[in-house]
């Protein structure tokens, strides 16, 4: 009995199935009225005690190769150049050749001794705070569908994104900011659909800050600012509109929608002050900036994104996504491009983990680091790998997740997840569980049935819960 609106809605819908008709619609209207009179983003309690209060999702777009990063495969090295003898996936993206060993060495790190490739020395330094899920798998071998599956749970249709579900379930803690932000998101491979609320209420929509074509320091929230109107003037504008609105209300009678709209101007005005202030990082110490790699042109852009993520999370934004744009798709030039990609994200990611930990935020912030799929252990050309949704690695940290462990495994060559397999639906179910939400119970009625983030799937991965 955790969320009154939600239960009311569901009860009413059940009632309507028995023939009480429009009651259900009244439930919807009641929600909408709430949405207008109260702020629908007001924080809501979880269903049961939560381990994580917020999520930072670090998305590495393009498909980082698991066997070159966090899933070492000695047999792949041994059998380099030989044909893969197992059964190939039923559906593949491109023709591939023989097994291709990783060009990079792996090293043991930390007390846990987890092996990480030399591409990620800084992340390696954090292994004791990380949980490597080596047995991830998804359903689709193309970027667009795989992105949508990772972000929304569906590789077939447009569905609400996970950030929208989280915002819908939990609201957000800072009323001067959106509940779900996505920093420099990609506009390809589903674009907005990856942060859209779809059929959920519009207030759960992700708010983009810039896009992948814009450097993080220049990225802005839409309509957050105009150069023509001084703030002083804007205050007067809002005040006049308030007077006009109140005048009108005085002879129209009460109307929560009209009242809500009058208030929304004040919220907008506060947001105008709060958001740019948070994007202004000058006040951060030199040490912190260095931690995220802001002193190096190679890491500056992504480091800035990660630092913004921490700043927004700190101020109570429920779900923040950062995106390392479509760079990881190494069908060729694996050696060169995986190295430079890793260089761009390694220090910023490690910086984010260290910074969250130092500020005591890691314990209740769930960090998810993932691509949309992994890559094949067999070569495409001489220096590339094809898409592989059948086995890849996602890193989790903080918020109720066991630290310093590896969970699940791929086969001897890193092609298929075989042990303790974790589907993307399972990742979603687990994320919701850590946030205190039963993924089977957070539903929304649409198009004739109840929908949820995990559709009819999803099992909580108990083995990684702290």
């Amino acid at each position, binding site marked *: 009995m955790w969320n009154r609106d939600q239960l009311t809605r569901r009860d009413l*819908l059940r009632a*309507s*199935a028995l*023939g009480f008709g*429009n009651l*259900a*619609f009244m439930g919807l209207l009641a929600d*909408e009225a709430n949405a*207008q009179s109260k702020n629908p983003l007001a924080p809501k309690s979880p269903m049961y005690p939560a381990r994580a209060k917020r999520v930072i999702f670090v998305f590495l777009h393009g498909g980082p190769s698991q066997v070159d990063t966090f899933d070492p495969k000695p047999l792949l090295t041994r059998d380099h150049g030989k044909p893969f003898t197992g059964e190939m996936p039923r559906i593949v993206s491109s023709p591939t050749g023989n097994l291709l060993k990783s060009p990079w060495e792996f090293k043991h790190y930390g007390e846990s001794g987890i092996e990480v490739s030399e591409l990620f020395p800084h992340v390696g330094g954090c292994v004791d705070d990380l949980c490597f899920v080596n047995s991830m798998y998804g359903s689709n*071998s*193309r*970027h*667009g*569908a795989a992105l*949508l599956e990772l972000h929304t749970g569906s590789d077939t249709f447009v569905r609400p994104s996970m950030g929208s579900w989280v915002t819908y379930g939990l609201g957000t803690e800072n009323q001067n900011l959106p509940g779900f932000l996505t920093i420099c998101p990609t*506009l*390809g*491979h*589903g*674009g*907005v659909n990856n942060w*859209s609320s*779809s059929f959920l*209420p*519009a*207030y759960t929509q992700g708010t983009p800050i810039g896009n992948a*074509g814009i450097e993080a320091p*220049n990225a802005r929230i*839409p*309509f957050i600012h*105009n150069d*023509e*109107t*001084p703030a002083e*003037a804007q205050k007067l*504008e809002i005040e*006049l*509109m308030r*007077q*006009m*609105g109140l005048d*009108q209300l005085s002879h*129209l*009678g009460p109307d929560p*929608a009209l009242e*809500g709209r009058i208030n*929304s*101007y004040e919220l*907008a*005005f506060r*947001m*105008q002050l709060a958001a740019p202030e948070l994007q202004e990082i000058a006040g951060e110490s030199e040490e912190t900036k260095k931690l995220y790699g802001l002193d190096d042109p190679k890491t500056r852009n992504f480091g800035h994104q990660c630092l913004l993520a921490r700043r927004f999370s700190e101020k109570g934004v429920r779900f923040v996504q950062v995106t390392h744009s479509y760079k990881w798709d190494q069908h060729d030039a694996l050696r060169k491009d995986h190295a430079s990609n890793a260089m761009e994200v390694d220090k910023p990611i490690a910086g984010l983990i260290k910074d969250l930990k130092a500020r005591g935020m890691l314990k209740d912030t769930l960090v998810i680091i993932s691509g949309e799929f992994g890559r094949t252990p067999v070569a495409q050309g*001489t220096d590339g790998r094809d898409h592989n949704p059948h086995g890849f690695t996602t890193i989790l940290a903080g918020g109720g997740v066991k630290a310093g462990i590896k969970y699940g495994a791929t086969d001897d060559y890193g092609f298929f997840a075989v042990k303790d*397999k974790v589907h993307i639906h399972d990742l979603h179910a687990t994320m919701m569980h850590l946030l205190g939400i039963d993924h*089977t119970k957070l539903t929304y009625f649409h*198009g*004739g049935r109840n929908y949820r983030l995990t559709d*009819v*799937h999803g*099992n909580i991965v108990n083995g990684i819960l702290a």
Partner: protein
Amino acid sequence: MALYNAKMAPRRTSVNHRWTVLAGSSALLIYGTLASANQAGMITATPEQAAHFESKVRPVFVAKCLACHGDKQQIAGLRLDKPISAAMAKKVAEAVEYNGITKMPPGGKLNAADLAAVSSWGRSGGPWPAKVATKTTKQFWSFVPPTTPALPKVKNTAWAKSPLDLFILAKLEEKGLKPAPQADKQTLIRRASFDLTGLPPTPAEIDAFLADKSPNAFEKVVDRLLASSAYGERWGRHWLDVARYSDSNGLDENLVYRNAWRYRDWVIGAINEDMPIDRFFQEQIAGDLLPGAGDSQVVATGYLALGGKMLAEDDPQKQELDIIDEQVDTMSKGMLAMTVGCARCHDHKFDPITAKDYYSMAGIFKSTKTMDKFTVVAEWQERALGPKEPQERLKKINATIKEKTASRDKVRAEERTALLARIQPEKENYIAAAKLQIQSEQEQSSLKPVLSARDGRLPTDAIMLEAENFISGNLTKDSNGYGVGIGVIHNSGTYPNVAEYDVKVGRGGPYQLDLRYASGENRSVRVYVNGQIALAAAANQNTGGFYPQHQKWIAEGVILLNQGSNRIKFERESYFPHVDRFALTPRPGAQPSRAEENGLIPEVVAKVAEQIKNKSEIKLELPENSDHLFPSEKVGQLKLLESEIKRLDGSRPTIPHAMAVSEAPAKTLKVHLRGSYLTLGEETKRGVPAILAKVSPVSMPENKSGRLELATWITSPKNPLTARVFVNRVWRWRFGRGIVASVDNFGILGNLPSHPELLDYLATKFVSEDKWSLKKLQKRMMLTSTYQMSTQYDSKFANLDPENRYLWRFNRKRLEAEAIRDSIFFVADSLDRKMGGTMINLPARAYVTNDQSANPIQYDSPRRAVYLPVIRAAVYDVYTAFDFGDPTVMNGDRASTTVAPQALFMLNGKVVLNATKSQATKLLKRTDLDDKGRIRYLYRSCFGRNATEKEISRSLSYLSKFEQVYARAKEPKLSAWQSLCKTFIGANEFIYVE
């Protein structure tokens, strides 16, 4: 089914292999006994058990068991796609638990969650969901054909102007409610204008209506509005919501639907012409098959083609079924308000729609051609329009081009093979040259660009050229977007991209080439000087993006120029970096290395150098474009072929195309268990849901898709849903809520009608008297007391009926995104009323968004919003803010939320700032008005009413306060008036209609 130790199991063994193992085991006997129990003692699931089964158990069966225990084969006599006995279920539980001799699945234990689900299901006797209970639902109201009900008796007979009012009033009286008084005329004309045209009334129109004292004055207003072209733009847009209209694919690969606008214009035209709605539907489903079909009917079938598609789906069968699903779902929700799509994976849980029904309907679309090809990137079909002759001519030209291209490719391939063989003996020389080149690159990499800022002082003998000033070439010159303020060149869409410059230098010798460009990826360009390749990979850096802020000067290398005129050429086979300008600075010291002086091919040297750097295997590779390296007679031959192809290409007649469907070979579909084509069930026949076929039968032809029959069936007066669903939609768009509130769902989980008799009255009259005329239906609804009530609040009634379900007053409505935008331009007197056509300036099937680049569509046009492109996955931000919704999904019931981004748009949006500036400028030019008069005009144009004295003086004092704030601005008076206009547009009274 196999019975062997898990350790024996080879990984991912094939079904056949399992059979071999089976033959040698004792499993048959055990399963023989098992099978005999598979007859009786089945348990029917409770709803909770059914939910558990569908969500946890059936998926496991589908994934792991049905290949051997489904419809294809029933190894050991076990079949898990049908109910099984409790005893059998228990044995299944034992098998998956790996406790007994039988261990299933053979390849290894199920994961813990699946195992728990199947085992607890089996242990509880294998409860199987019952078939949908058609008995109780057969009489469900929406499946019973409507009949015209008797008119109800009311007390307040004076109030009712029309039969419609009687139904409303009867309900109000029954509930102890009273209708609100008639709205005043100012309110009425504003309401009707927004309702029918999406635009406010002009002060002149208001005056005319106020002055018209005739009894049918309001009817005259309605007739005028219905006759205006803005009516089709408004009501066409309503239908476009239901048709999930978009100008791009969205989903994974966001390709532009270059020809979708023809369907949009067809809709607007049809509504303006008052095409009967039965015909309107028929043309959209099967226009191409109707007698006398022409282009217009082909365009109408765009309805079926416009859905979002996974164009990069590696599984073409899945892709085809997903496209069909989208069509079934959109059409059945849009025209029948039935969620047939829910039955894709299993029988509908609530409505009497079976999976068999779903695949019957899907069979019709399986027999309809929507796509040209399903392989990545898939292509949808576009049908040629216009006369046949140019179409035939085009076919011939295309065939010739294909022929010529094939012979060109053949010559080229042969020559490449020969050339590669010729240079093979020189491999060592190439390696040596490559090493030298690497060395010289390393030296060159120490080159620094002469300039750092965009402008700066170059040495006097240096030369700077704007990239746009090429003397020949094909690149796009762009001084907006990517090139705003600086001007850049970028991709032309025809390859190779080329730009050539004529460069005159006073002194020959080595020059350093610096390029200023922006690129979000490596887009290396070949640089030719006087026909010789000089640099094989210039502009090969990622500067961080494609926008002006990513522009950087980068030193590219040293080239040799002759005294006097030189021809410099940039060339690339694919997308071009966004080049702003380049500089050539004399460089006395350095000498460029020139591979060709040693008789080597520079591009091959460059490739080898790349291989050395990447430590990959070294082999000689030719550049993509190697024609210039062939013997001269071959070069000539290729040039000839190329110019032939080019000429033919240019001679292609431009033929308009429409996204449209056509007939495909007639096929049927089997039921797909859990929606997967890997697990097929029983065969279906093409048709419509059985429960509806009982009321309104349909017969499907053997050798055609049945689309025409489907269209006829949907619009048959016997169909219990179509007319009801449509009049209900119209009611929703007018009154803010449907008589059936769930306008897209008339099924059991939908809402019951608040006024069932009224709905049936409207539906039957719409068919029998209005002959499906929407304009007649509009008048039937508007010339009523119900429509003309005020929104007056009443606390007593608000307590009795807080949501105004029974319409004791008119619902106040917020304008939709398009109406808001149009009205902002309209009151600023800047709305462009041009109709139709496309505003998309992209080649057909071009990417409209990709990973880095923002949506290139310009939305700042003052055209009516209905003509702005609708780009899926990158919807116009003003639309996003104001609940336009996701155009991938049909939606007859847009939300109306109040969120902060809307307020931000009103405060900061460009549309608002520009429009109000123009509005204020025009107001100030009105010399016939003083400031008070201007304020009065604002009230009349924006709110459709007169200002009070208090309001006038408040506005005046506001203006003077503002002029102080803006005192330092260039035009303080204009700024103050603009600000005042902003408050009018931002006010509730502007975007809410009483």
